[in-house]
């Protein structure tokens, strides 16, 4: 269910077109939406921000259709996911760079030529994260990101992706297994 503060802000946006109330909603939820899109786009922060901006504009235009059946954040994530799918349909090359990179890397996790600093292990780990996720198929990746990064439940993942709950469970099981195997093969877990 939506939070009370979200409901009050949504009511102000729908009734009075309050941009200030909408700004508060964006500020409260931008983190989850942008983080989700960054992982979906394989770590492309700029593309993720563009998509997040587009998603919030769609939310602004369609806020009247929000019925409160799920949380506002789940509703936003659904819009963000659809925005991502639309973008990939329009420009398949924009969102597949990391997948191509992962496929070309025979030895598993390796650094690209644009590594900013070898001592920056945090950056390296983030890059490895995107490479590891790129080894999964689209549905497995989306389900894993939503559960492992955003901490969402099966029901919310079903709302966002439109997939059946049992299908999501099998995607998560298979995805986690593949991801763990891939990580172990590439030096994680000793």
């Amino acid at each position, binding site marked *: 269910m939506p939070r009370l503060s979200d409901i009050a802000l949504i009511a102000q946006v729908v009734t009075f077109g309050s941009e200030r109330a909408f700004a508060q909603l964006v500020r409260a939820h931008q983190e989850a939406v942008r983080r989700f899109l960054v992982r979906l786009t394989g770590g492309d922060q700029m593309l993720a921000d563009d998509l997040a901006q587009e998603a919030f504009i769609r939310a*602004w235009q369609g806020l009247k259709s929000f019925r409160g059946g799920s949380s506002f954040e789940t509703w936003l994530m659904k819009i963000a996911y659809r925005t991502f799918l639309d973008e990939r349909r329009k420009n398949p090359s924009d969102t597949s760079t990391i997948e191509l990179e992962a496929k070309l890397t025979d030895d598993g996790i390796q*650094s690209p030529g644009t590594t900013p600093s070898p001592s920056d292990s945090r950056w390296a780990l983030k890059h490895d994260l995107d490479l590891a996720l790129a080894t999964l198929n689209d549905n497995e990746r989306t389900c894993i990101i939503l559960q492992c990064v955003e901490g969402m439940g099966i029901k919310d993942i079903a709302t966002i992706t439109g997939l059946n709950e049992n299908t999501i469970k099998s995607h998560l099981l298979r995805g986690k297994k593949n991801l763990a195997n891939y990580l172990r093969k590439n030096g994680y877990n000793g």
Partner: protein
Amino acid sequence: MDKQDMHTQTTKGFANEQLTMLSDDALLDQFFAEARQPVADNGFTERVVASLPAHTVCSLRCLSTALNIFTVVAGVALLIYLGFFTRIADFYEMMIARIISGIQHFDADAMLVQTILFIHRVPDMLPSATQIIAIGATMIILTTLALQRFVKQI
């Protein structure tokens, strides 16, 4: 050692240090911990608000104005239909007449008796269900109007 080798070693070294022989879930949990770092706003909200389409705002404001006018007209019409203003005027007229009459014919004994009778009759003077509904409806309309004005000021 080139840049690429250094990065690979750093990554694997960090990984080995942090994660040793873990279960699938624990391994993934530690691996994804980095991805759960907070994302700073960095002007994102301002960019979104600046790019909001204007026509939607206009239509919502028009809807808001229309809703306000409708509520006011409906509220006043309902009050006239129920005879609210006439009854208020009658009530004040009666009150003033009684006060004047009371001053003209003040009698301490009669006042005492009337007071005792009044206290005795208080339970019979409580409003009926219809009156409560009518009062409630009026209160709701007035509260809605006040709230709308308050929210608009915000």
